[in-house]
C-alpha cells in the first residue's frame, strides 16, 4: 500500500496555508506598526488634539481600540479580493488576456446565491432552520453560485472569446467589455421582470451576524472588545479552503500540469496529447467557480447587492492581481490580502490622521496610490512572473 504522503502531496496543501498565514500576519503587522507609530508621533500634535476635541479620546487609544476590528475586516475583504483575483490571474496566465467580464461573473454568482436564499426564506424554510440546517443552506447557496458562475464563465469563453482566439489582442478585450455590459443588463432585466427592483438584500438567518467575543482589553477610559463576526470567519474560512484547493489542483495534479503546460506553450502542449480547448474551458470553469463563491461571500458580508455589485470588487481584485504580479497564483493571494488590508486601514484611520480633512471616502485613492508606487518599483508586481510557473 502506498503511504499517504505519496498519494496526497501534503507539501502542496501546507505551503499555501503557510503563505496565507505569512501574508496575513506580515501585512497586518506592518500596517499595524505603521499606524501605531504614526499615532504615537502625532498624539501630542494638532492631529491628536483635534481628535481629542472631536471625540474626547487620545489618538493612541483610538488607534489601538480600532485595530483588531480593522485587521479582521481587512482580511475578510482581502480574501474575497484574492478569490476574485485568482479568476483574472488564471485566465491571464493561460491566455494572456484580461477577462473583464469576470466582475459580472462574480455578480451573477452573488445573485444566484441570494435569490436562492430569498426563495427559501419566502418558503418559510429559513426561519424554521436549525443552526445546522442554516449552515447547510448557506453551503447550498454557495454551491449554486459557484455552479452558475462556473458554467457562465465557460459559456462566455466559448461564445465570446474562442472565435476571436487568432485576432489581435484588443479584439477579445473589447468583446469582454461587451459581455460585461451585457451581463449587467441581463441581471437588471431578470431582476426587474421577476422582482420589480434591482437591489436584493441577503436574508438574515443562522447565527452569521452574531459576534464571537474572545475577551476585553481595558484601554484607559475605554475597553476594547476583542471579537469577530461569525460571517467574517466564514468568509475567510471558505476562501482559504478554496485557495488551498486551487493551489493543489494547479501544482499537484495532472490537470494542473496540463494547465501550466498550456500556459507556457500551447502548440507543444497539443503535441503532448493535451486538448488545449478543454484545458482553457477548465481554466474558465475554475476562475468562474471561485468568482461565484466570492460573490456569495461578498453578499453575506455586505448584505446588499445590485447589478453593478461586481464593478468595484472586480476592479479591486484585478488591481490585486496586478499588484501581486498578474499570472501568478501566489501573487493574487498576496495582492488580495495586501489590498484588502490597505484599503480597510485607510478607511478606518485616514479621517483621524488628517483631522477629518480626508475621510474614508478617500481610501481608494490611498490604496491605489500605494499600488502605483509598488508598480513603479516592481513593474511586474510583487511576485512577478506568471501562472505557468509552479508557485
Amino acid at each position, binding site marked *: 500500500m502506498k503511504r499517504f504522503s505519496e498519494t496526497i502531496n501534503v507539501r502542496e496543501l501546507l505551503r499555501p496555508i503557510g503563505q496565507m498565514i505569512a501574508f496575513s500576519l506580515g501585512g497586518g503587522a506592518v500596517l499595524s506598526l505603521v499606524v501605531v507609530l504614526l499615532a504615537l508621533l502625532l498624539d501630542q500634535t494638532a492631529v491628536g488634539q483635534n481628535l481629542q476635541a472631536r471625540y474626547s479620546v487620545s489618538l493612541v487609544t483610538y488607534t489601538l481600540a480600532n485595530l483588531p476590528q480593522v485587521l479582521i475586516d481587512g482580511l475578510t475583504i482581502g480574501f474575497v479580493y484574492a478569490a476574485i483575483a485568482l479568476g483574472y490571474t488564471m485566465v491571464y496566465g493561460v491566455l494572456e488576456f484580461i477577462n473583464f467580464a469576470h466582475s459580472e461573473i462574480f455578480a451573477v454568482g452573488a445573485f444566484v446565491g441570494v435569490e436562492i436564499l430569498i426563495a427559501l426564506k419566502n418558503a418559510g424554510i429559513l426561519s424554521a432552520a436549525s443552526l445546522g440546517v442554516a449552515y447547510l443552506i448557506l453551503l447550498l447557496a454557495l454551491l449554486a453560485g459557484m455552479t452558475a458562475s462556473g458554467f457562465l464563465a465557460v459559456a462566455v469563453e466559448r461564445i465570446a472569446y474562442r472565435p476571436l482566439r487568432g485576432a489581435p489582442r484588443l479584439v477579445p478585450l473589447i468583446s469582454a467589455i461587451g459581455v460585461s455590459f451585457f451581463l449587467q443588463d441581463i441581471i437588471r432585466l431578470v431582476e426587474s421582470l421577476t422582482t420589480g427592483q434591482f437591489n436584493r438584500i441577503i436574508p438574515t438567518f443562522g447565527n452569521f451576524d452574531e459576534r464571537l467575543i474572545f475577551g476585553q482589553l481595558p484601554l484607559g477610559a475605554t475597553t476594547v472588545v476583542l471579537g469577530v463576526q461569525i460571517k467574517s470567519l466564514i468568509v475567510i474560512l471558505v476562501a482559504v479552503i478554496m485557495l488551498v484547493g486551487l493551489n493543489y489542483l494547479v501544482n499537484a495534479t*495532472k490537470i494542473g*500540469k*496540463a494547465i*501550466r*503546460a498550456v500556459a*507556457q*506553450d500551447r*502548440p*507543444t*502542449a*497539443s*503535441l*503532448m*496529447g*493535451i*486538448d*488545449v*480547448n478543454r484545458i482553457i474551458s477548465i481554466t474558465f470553469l475554475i476562475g468562474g467557480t471561485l468568482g461565484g463563491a466570492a460573490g456569495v461571500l461578498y453578499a453575506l458580508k455586505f448584505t446588499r447587492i445590485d447589478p453593478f455589485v461586481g464593478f468595484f470588487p472586480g476592479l479591486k481584485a484585478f488591481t490585486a492581481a496586478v499588484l501581486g504580479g498578474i499570472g501568478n497564483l501566489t501573487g493574487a493571494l498576496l495582492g488580495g490580502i495586501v489590498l484588502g488590508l490597505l484599503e480597510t486601514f485607510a478607511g478606518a484611520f485616514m479621517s483621524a490622521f488628517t483631522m477629518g480633512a480626508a475621510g474614508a471616502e478617500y481610501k481608494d485613492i490611498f490604496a491605489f496610490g500605494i499600488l502605483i508606487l509598488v508598480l513603479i518599483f516592481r513593474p511586474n508586481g510583487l511576485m512577478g512572473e506568471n501562472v*505557468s*510557473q*509552479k508557485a
Partner: protein
Amino acid sequence: MSLLTLENVHSYYGRIHALKGISIEINQGEIVTLIGANGAGKSTTLRTISGILHPKQGRVLLKEQDISHMEPHNIVAAGIGHVPEGRGIFPNLTVKENMEIGAFTLNDNAEIARRMDHAVTLFPRLKERISQKGGTLSGGEQQMLAIARGLMLQPSVLMLDEPSMGLAPVLVELIFDIIKQLNEQGTTILLVEQNALMALSIAHRGYVLQTGEIVISDTAANLKQNETVQHAYLGVE
C-alpha cells in the same frame, strides 16, 4: 499498404504557400527521412501531419483514416508522436514533469514510471537534473529531454525534427542508435535532419524537398549515390 500517407498536400501560413502539393508514403516499420535546404518545408510537413497545421488541399491518412482535420491531441491519441523543432521544453515545468506530460494520454502511473526509468537510463544526465526546471537546462540537455519526452508516449509513428541539433558528436550517435533501436522494436520513424548523411545511413528511404515540393524520392542507398543530393545536401564536391 502504407501506414502514413500524404496525398497532394498543400499547406499555408496565412498567404505563404509552404507546401505545394506533396505526396509521401511511409510504410509500417520504416525509417523515412526528409531532406531539404532551410525553409524547404520539412518542419511544415511534420506540423501538417501532427495537426498543428491543416492542409488547405489534399489529405493526410493514417492507415485508411483521414486525419487531415483532426486536432493535434487526437492525432497523438491515434499514435503519432512529434518531437518538434526547437525542442519545445516547458521552461517552468521540472524535468520530471516535462517527461510525465509526454505520456499525458496514458493513465497508468506504474507504466509511466517504468517508461521514465527507461528514458533516464538512456540519458543519465536527465536523472541528475530530474527536479530542475526545464528552462534551466543547457541547450543539449533540453534536446535530450525533448527526445526522452518523445519516447514517453511510445507512439506507433514517431516524427523527429532535427533531433541532433546542438548535441555533441557522441550524443548524436547515441540518438541515432536510439532511433535505430526504436525502429527495430517496431516504431515507424519519420526523421528530419540537418545531417543528411547520418540520416541516410539509418533510413530506408528518403524524400528531397525543395521550396515546398518533392523533387526526388528514392531508397536511402540510392539517394546517397545521387549526384544532385550529394552536391546539394551531402557536401560532396
